Structures are given as structure tokens and as C-alpha cells.
């Protein structure tokens, strides 16, 4: 696997849109060709090389291309957007749309990632070692087809609207989450090791939410059914099992109503 290292040298005055920073675009390009790719600062079209030092050539395909992003990229958007394979490692924190619409490969953000990370993710893996912003792994506005596959791990906290319209895949958050988790979800699994605030699982059609910490206010549409023992990444624990959203529509299987499930650690 070939590694391309890009290092921020000239900070943008505003924000930088670097949707070209993805293994799919870099694949088959030399450092010089990569430096020549365009980026946008507002409506000003510039070259990647004008903002970043570029070292190393990309592999022949996305799959054998690894991108390391160094320096302060807190004001850089769209890193790893639409990547389908290969690897992106952001050594610091980054702005919105990290790994948005990604379908494969692996992206690691060592710091924080702002809102809309992994929007409508289809596959692959996103790891955020710091905190994630709002709308992590959520659908794009108006779309009922949210995250459908892949895995997201956040080692810190996450903002509001995690996994909105989620259809599949898994989101694991080691810290706490803000309001609204898995709203409108119709599949997939969200694991929260820390605490949740409120509005959890609103309008949930199907899918699974597992919470180890506390919930400030439970949605009225969630009904306690029983206690269940679950095994979550290796560790067994006892959970209070709720079904919901009982106010929402649900599919039927063999005349049986299929609800979404919420598990809260006892």
C-alpha cells in the first residue's frame, strides 16, 4: 500500500473544501498530480498544493492508497468524501463531512470531527478518536435512506441526531450523546456506552439502540417489556428491554407487529 502524506502549510482565511482528498481520487496519481487537484475556498478555486505539502505517490488503485493528513485541518471539509476503499488518517481534528457518503475503506480521525461525518454511509469503517459533531451517520436532508452499512466508532462524545434514518450498519459511541438518537431509523444498531439525554429513538420503526448509561427522559412511545441479558463486544450485561416507537407505523411479520428495540443497562 502506497502512502501519500499531505501537510497543511497555508491555512485558508475561510474554510477549505477538499472533497478531492480521497483514495479514489488520488489513485494512480503522482505527488505532483495530486498537488494539482483543485480545492475550493468559498468560490475561489485553488490547487491542493497551494495549501498542502504533498509527499509520496498514490497506489495504482484506491485500495492500495493510504492518505495521511497532517497539520491543522480544523477548517477543512469533506476529507475522505465518497471513498470506496483504501485508507485516510487525519492526525488532528477536522471539519464537516468527514467520510461523508463513504462506501468502503477505513478512515481514522485522531482528533474531533465536526457535523455530518459519515453522512449516508454505505460501507467501510470510520473511527473518530475524539468527539463527533451532530448528524453522525445520518441521512442527507430529505432522504429516507440513511446509513445502510459499515461501522462507526467514536471514542469520545457525539452530538445530536446520531444515526437519523439509519437502515443498517453499526454506530458505537464510548462517551455521551446529545438529543435525538436513531430518529426514523428502520434498521441498524447504535451502542452508547455513556449517557443519553432525551428524545431517544423517536419515530423508530425498526433497529436497535443499546445504552449503558442514563437517559434523562424516556420517550412516551417506548414501553418496557422485560429484562434481557445481552453480549456487547464480548461483555455480557443485563438490560431493561423497551419496544417502540409505539406511536409509529411498523411492519408486520406473520401478523406480528415488529417494533424497534431499546436496551438500557440495569
Amino acid at each position, binding site marked *: 500500500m502506497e502512502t501519500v502524506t499531505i501537510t497543511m502549510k497555508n491555512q485558508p482565511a475561510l474554510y477549505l473544501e477538499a472533497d478531492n482528498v480521497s483514495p479514489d481520487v488520488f489513485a494512480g496519481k503522482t505527488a505532483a498530480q495530486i498537488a494539482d487537484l483543485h480545492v475550493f475556498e468559498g468560490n475561489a478555486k485553488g490547487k491542493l498544493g497551494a495549501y498542502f505539502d504533498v509527499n509520496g505517490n498514490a497506489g495504482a488503485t484506491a485500495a492500495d492508497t493510504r492518505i495521511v493528513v497532517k497539520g491543522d485541518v480544523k477548517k477543512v471539509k469533506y476529507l475522505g468524501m465518497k471513498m470506496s476503499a483504501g485508507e485516510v488518517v487525519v492526525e488532528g481534528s477536522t471539519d464537516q463531512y468527514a467520510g461523508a457518503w463513504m462506501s468502503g475503506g477505513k478512515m481514522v480521525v485522531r482528533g474531533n470531527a465536526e*457535523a*455530518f461525518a459519515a453522512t449516508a454511509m454505505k460501507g467501510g469503517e470510520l473511527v473518530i478518536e475524539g468527539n463527533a*459533531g*451532530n*448528524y453522525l451517520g445520518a441521512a442527507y436532508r430529505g432522504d429516507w435512506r440513511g446509513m445502510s452499512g459499515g461501522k462507526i466508532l467514536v471514542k469520545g462524545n457525539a*452530538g*445530536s441526531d446520531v444515526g437519523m434514518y439509519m437502515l443498517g450498519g453499526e454506530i458505537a459511541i464510548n462517551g455521551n450523546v446529545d*438529543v435525538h438518537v436513531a430518529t426514523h431509523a428502520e434498521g441498524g444498531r447504535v451502542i452508547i456506552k455513556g449517557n443519553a439525554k432525551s428524545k431517544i429513538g423517536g419515530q423508530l420503526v425498526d433497529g436497535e439502540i443499546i445504552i449503558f448509561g442514563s437517559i434523562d427522559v424516556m420517550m412516551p412511545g417506548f414501553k418496557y417489556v422485560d429484562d434481557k441479558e445481552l453480549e456487547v463486544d464480548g461483555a455480557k450485561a443485563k438490560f431493561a428491554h423497551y419496544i417502540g416507537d409505539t406511536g409509529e407505523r411498523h411492519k408486520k411479520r406473520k401478523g406480528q407487529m415488529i417494533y424497534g428495540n431499546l436496551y438500557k443497562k440495569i
Partner: protein
Amino acid sequence: MTKNITLNLISGRSIQQGVAIEGGKEKPAYRTAAGIIELDPSDLKKLGAWKNTNVRVTSDYGSVVVKATETSQGPHPGLGFIPMGPWANSIIDPNTYSTGMPTFKGTPVKVEVAINEPVLLGIELVQKLCGVK
């Protein structure tokens, strides 16, 4: 130390505020209509303030002096209402939760009596906070 109470602050339209903005935001009438906080009588009592005394309202996001009035749309103990405008917007929670919409309603605030502090005019207040003459 002065007595203070904590409230949940909401801002919004009032017909007096509506009339005043059309009458001119540079005018004192605008301050009279929107440079106020409507409190429940019980909260006025807790604060130990007469109606129509100036109070300082402080949140995590700022601090502003307005006139405390007794609400005509109560009871709403624990809830303070400042009509939409520069006074409310000096202290409301700007968090949009990435929806574009600030949290104009539902900001925890501290209210304390500030008899000797003036309530600024609307334009004056914004210019001062922005550091422009």
C-alpha cells in the same frame, strides 16, 4: 450579595413589539415594548422586586439589563419571557444543533435586581455589543 433567581427564558413575538418595530427601532417605544422581561408574580416575589424595576438577566451567552414587568399571559412560574429583539438575543442560546436555528426558547438564565443600571435603546445596545459607534 444581591438576591437572584434562576429561570428558563423564552423569547417571542408580542403585539406591542410588532407595533414598535414598525414604528421605528431607533425609538424609545421599541425599548418599552421589547426591553423587558415578563415574569410570573411569584417569581417577582422570589426576586424581591417591584414590577417595572430594572433587572440584569445573565446566561452562559451574555448579560443584558431589561425592565422586569408582571406577565399578562401567566401564570408561568419559572418561565421568563423577553419579546424577540436585541435584548433577548444578547443572552439566548445560539446553539443550532446543526439545523441553522438558534435555540431562541429554553435558555437557563439568572435574574438579579439592577435598579441603577440603564436599559439601552435597541440600536445602541447592538452597536455597543459589536463595538461600533
